[in-house]
């Protein structure tokens, strides 16, 4: 049984239907990527999973339990955390306070230990622990957003365009971290426009076009696919 499975998902905002009936599954321990161009429906899919957008039709289940239309905080409680598009850092809170917010639902005593783990993953954040989020660079903010999501101890981590606005070297670092996080046992669903990087780290990938899944395969398969190379990898 898949950790996350989506069937026939239709979702959108107001008069716009951004996602028009997609099926998608993520197995325990996988990195799965959802690639597509601007406005293809990637973020809407993620927002539907985390409950920030109410699906119009279709079903989403997590570890066999239906989560369609659950409220966001209930979904977080089940073990799904999101790194929102544009990072969503609390600009006026310090790095430490941002990380604390990620652990909002937890009442155990290991929050401090987990924060040290995040600092070990991103030593940069430790140096900046007392600084406010708004003073961090783009790359540091992305690290903070990922670290904050990890503070909830998720079973499934949703990443919405972590490479957005970052230099190639930083993108490399972020994707390395993604692989590390998976190695520590967290399943990952990664939404990206940067198809080359995403397919390199992903076990499997889906290509979404105008709200519909147009292709599906292993990361390597998709990276070799002619239409993918043309449309997303910038080859003639």
């Amino acid at each position, binding site marked *: 049984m898949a950790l996350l499975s989506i069937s026939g998902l239709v979702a959108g905002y107001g008069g716009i239907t951004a996602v028009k009936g997609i099926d998608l599954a993520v197995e325990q321990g996988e990195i799965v990527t959802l690639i597509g161009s601007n406005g293809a429906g990637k973020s809407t899919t993620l927002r539907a999973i*985390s*409950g*920030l957008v109410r699906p119009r039709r279709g079903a989403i289940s997590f570890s066999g339990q239906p989560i369609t239309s659950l*409220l*966001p*905080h209930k979904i*977080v*409680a089940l073990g799904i*955390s*999101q790194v*929102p598009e*544009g990072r*969503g850092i*609390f*600009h*006026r*809170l310090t790095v430490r306070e941002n990380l*604390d*917010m*990620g652990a*909002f*639902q937890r009442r155990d005593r290991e929050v401090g230990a987990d924060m040290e783990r995040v600092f070990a993953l991103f030593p*940069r954040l430790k140096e*900046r622990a*007392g*600084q*406010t989020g*708004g*003073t*961090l*660079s*783009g*790359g*540091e*903010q992305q*690290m903070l957003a990922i670290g*904050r999501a990890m503070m*909830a101890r998720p079973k499934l981590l949703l990443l919405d365009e972590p490479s*957005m*606005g*970052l*230099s190639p*070297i*930083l993108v490399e670092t972020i994707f390395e971290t993604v692989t590390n996080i998976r190695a520590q046992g967290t399943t990952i669903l990664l939404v990206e426009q940067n198809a080359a990087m995403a397919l390199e780290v992903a076990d499997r990938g889906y290509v979404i076009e105008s709200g519909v899944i147009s292709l599906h395969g292993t990361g390597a398969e998709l990276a070799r696919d002619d239409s993918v190379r043309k449309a997303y990898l910038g080859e003639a």
Partner: protein
Amino acid sequence: MPGTVRRATWDRVPAGLRSLAWLALSLSVLVIPVFDDTWVRMFFLVGLYVVLGMGLNVVVGFAGLLDLGYVAFFAAGAYMVGIWSSPVSPAVDTSLSFWLILPLALVVGAVVGVLLGMPVLPLRGDYLAIVTLGFGEIVRILVVNMTNVTNGSQGLYNIPRPDIAYREVDNVQAFYVMIVLAAFGTWFVTTRLRDSRIGRAWEAIREDEDVAGAMGINTTKYKLMAFAIGASVGALGGAIYAPFITFISPESFTLLVSINVLALVIIGGMGSTQGVVAGSLILIGIPELLQFSETRDALEQMGWARDGLNGAIHAFNTVTTADVSDLPPADEWGEKLAVYRFIVFGALLVVVMVLRPMGLFPSRRRTLEFEYPPEAEVAGGGGGS
């Protein structure tokens, strides 16, 4: 160093000296009852607005929900006491003890807060402000029209004074002590809440409601909680105000009350308790003060100040070829000042906001909001760390 907070002037005063100053100020409230009744009355009103300001601070300062209809909760508390104890109350024949009504008023206030909060849950910022502004007016109009409960625009009068030890409290000093106790109680509860898990949720919601939801914060629950607590404190103020003034009518609960409370919160520095105290002293204390005969007399002795101002006016007239007339003669200008006190007061507000845009005693967060406005922060997206 980047990211460290530029400290406000007051924060540069050594911590020991600061706490000593606050302690002295806190103790000074105990001295006030020995003054003349007019003074105690003035400080009662200041205290009342401190309570209201701390209540609104929970909604606006902590949770970031701009509420322009706060008067509704003040009215709810006052009318709870009026309806259940005034002899002219049309719906209720008996007159209950103030001490019995008070806790009920707090509960009713919280319920009204939740009821008015629910329909505005999806609204943010300006839209929330407009709708809550409407709610404030709706509540006032309801009070005017529900004549069989509220006695309409005639109001409820002869509201009995509370008993303490079987004796009716009829002096302003006792009311002053009551409002001081209420203020300390409110201060204790709201600061404890601010520093709790609930306060953290409010902070996240104020910063970014969407992300707060994604962090697993039940935004509906915590927003309603802020409305309920703020409203309950508003009702507390109203419940103490009703027997103090003994007569309440819809005219006591206009938009001006909401605006005054919001203004004092902003002038003082949003989210800060010291700010609420300073704001009330200025916004409520000064207009009252300008009406005192002592003030009038003192001003009349200050002919030099009048001459100085006249000199400035002459200079202004020469430079700009304007024709501003002289101030009234010294034996009249005190009286005139009392009449035009709201102009003086308005000018004072402008001065404060120009000199200290984040308020007199800004909370740490508020300072940061001015240091790093949200629009400026996103810019650093493209590039290295």
